[in-house]
C-alpha cells in the first residue's frame, strides 16, 4: 500500500490515535529532562553569566519556528498537487505552533538582549528576519480565519505559503544586505572547534530533540482536531440539505 493511504482522513485518525500517546510521553520526558538539565545543572558562562541558560529555550524555539514553516510549505505543496485534505489540515494545525515558537524566540531573545547588548530590540538581521517570519505566520493564520469555505481557504493559504516562502528567503538576504548585526552565528556547526562547550551542547541537543517531539505530538493532536472539525462542518452541511 502506498504512503498516501495515510492521507485518507479515516486512516489517519486510526494511525494517529495509536501514535499520539507515545509521542506525547516521549516529548514530555525529553523536554522536561532537557530544560531541567539546562536550568539546574549547567555552569554559568564566563562572559554571559547565568543568561546562557536562556539558550535552552531560545535556540530550540528559533529552530522550530523556521522548520515548522518549512514543514507547512511541504504539506501545502502536497495539498496543491495531490489534494489530500489531511496535509492541508496539518499545515493549518502547525501554524499556531510555529507562531508560538517564533514568539518564544523573539521574547527570550529580547530578554537576553537586555543584559547582553543593553537593549531589548536591535534591528539585527536575524532578529529582523524573525519579526518578518512572525508577520508571515500572522498573515497565514489570518487568511485561514477569514475564509469560511474550507477548501477555498486551503487552496489560498497554500498559495500564500508558497509565495511567502520565496519572499521569506528574499527578505532574509535583503535584511543581511541591509544591516550587519551583533547576533551570534551558528553554534551547532559540525566541526566541534567553534562549538559551545559540551556542558551546554549536550543539554541543548536534548532540548532541541524535546521541542521536535513536542511539535510532532501537538501537531498530531491538533490535526486530529482539525479533521474532526472538518467532518463536523460536512455533517452539519449535510443536515442542512436534509
Amino acid at each position, binding site marked *: 500500500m502506498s504512503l498516501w493511504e495515510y492521507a485518507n482522513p479515516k486512516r489517519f485518525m486510526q494511525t494517529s490515535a495509536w501514535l499520539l500517546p507515545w509521542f506525547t510521553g516521549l516529548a514530555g520526558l525529553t523536554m522536561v529532562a532537557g530544560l531541567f538539565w539546562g536550568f539546574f545543572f549547567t555552569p554559568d558562562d564566563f562572559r554571559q553569566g547565568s543568561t546562557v541558560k536562556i539558550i535552552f529555550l531560545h535556540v530550540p524555539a528559533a529552530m522550530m519556528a523556521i522548520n515548522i514553516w518549512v514543514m507547512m510549505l511541504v504539506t501545502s505543496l502536497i495539498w496543491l498537487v495531490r489534494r489530500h485534505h489531511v496535509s492541508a489540515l496539518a499545515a493549518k494545525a502547525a501554524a499556531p505552533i510555529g507562531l*508560538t515558537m517564533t514568539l518564544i524566540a523573539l*521574547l527570550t531573545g529580547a530578554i537576553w538582549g537586555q543584559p547582553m547588548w543593553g537593549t531589548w530590540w536591535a534591528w539585527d538581521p536575524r532578529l529582523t528576519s524573525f519579526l518578518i517570519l512572525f508577520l508571515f505566520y500572522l498573515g497565514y493564520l489570518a487568511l485561514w480565519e477569514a475564509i469560511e469555505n474550507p477548501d477555498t481557504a486551503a487552496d489560498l493559504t497554500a498559495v500564500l505559503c508558497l509565495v511567502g516562502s520565496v519572499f521569506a528567503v528574499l527578505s532574509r538576504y535583503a535584511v543581511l544586505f541591509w544591516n550587519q548585526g551583533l547576533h551570534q552565528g551558528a553554534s551547532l556547526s559540525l566541526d566541534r572547534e567553534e562549538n559551545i562547550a559540551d556542558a551546554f551542547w549536550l543539554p541543548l541537543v536534548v532540548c532541541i530533540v524535546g521541542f521536535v517531539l513536542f511539535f510532532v505530538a501537538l501537531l498530531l493532536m491538533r490535526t486530529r482536531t482539525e479533521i474532526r472539525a472538518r467532518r463536523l462542518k460536512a455533517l452539519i452541511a449535510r443536515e442542512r440539505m436534509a
Partner: protein
Amino acid sequence: MPDLGKYAAEVLSAYGVSILLIAALVGWSFLRAGRVRRALEEAEARMKPHGR
C-alpha cells in the same frame, strides 16, 4: 535552585514567559479538541437515527 547571580530576573522571566506561552498553546489545543470532539459525537448521534 541554582544561584542565578545578577541575571536572575532575566533568566527566570525568560523561562516563565516561554513556559507560559507553551502552556497556553497546549491548553487551548486541548480545550478546542475537547469541544470539537463532543460536538462531532453529538452531531453523529443526531445523524444516526434518521439514517443518512
